[in-house]
């Protein structure tokens, strides 16, 4: 099989955040409820 000598260009590397971060954000979003009373916002985080 032919050997590939060329290296992948650094620019082509796709950077992504950690899966844990995305997972945390989705869970946080599900848990968060913002209630607006008059001019104030109340954040409620469900366990």
């Amino acid at each position, binding site marked *: 099989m032919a050997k590939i000598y060329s290296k992948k260009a650094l620019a082509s590397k*796709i950077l992504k*955040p950690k899966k844990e971060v995305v997972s945390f954000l*989705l869970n*946080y*979003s599900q848990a968060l409820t913002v209630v607006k009373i008059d001019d104030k916002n109340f954040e409620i985080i469900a366990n």
Partner: protein
Amino acid sequence: MADLHIPDALLVKNYVQGNENALATLIKRHESKIYGFIYSKISDRDISNDIFQDTFIKVIKTLKSNSYNEEGKFLPWVMRISHNLIVDHFRKTKKMPMYRETEEFSIFSVMSDDTLTIENKMIFDQVEVDLKKIIEELPEDQKEVLVMRMYQDMSFKEISELTGVSINTALGRMRYALMNLRKIIDKHQIILTN
């Protein structure tokens, strides 16, 4: 795949109306651009993850509190939030630590003023004058070597060439000059300290 055809604005609207999957689609669609942007400025994976997380926490809070208005587009808005957080990060890290005076800690314990007080300066000047007077008392050959070495900062080689004596003789004269200075100081009980 079908999600890719739904515009950001519609996904945002769906999310605000309670569709949590819309947020997952928005994050998946833009994560590499936003994370890449943060990483290009920060160059640290962990800090970039933190800033990415803080960015979306702000996005979620804003959307859930109905404070988002679709004036611009979703991605530039998120990018702006992340940009502001990057600026905050650099401000925090580059800021000088601030010290406050407390009972246990005084700023003057780590700061000092090396300049002489007026009194110390007067004493210093007086010592200089006294020392010059004592040097005048030395024999001419010793005085010559001492002045050249101490006041004109010449090497013993240069002194020997200039005075026409060997280096050893110049060294010897310097040694005698210092010994004689000490003798005069001791004899007259002169205090040459600041």
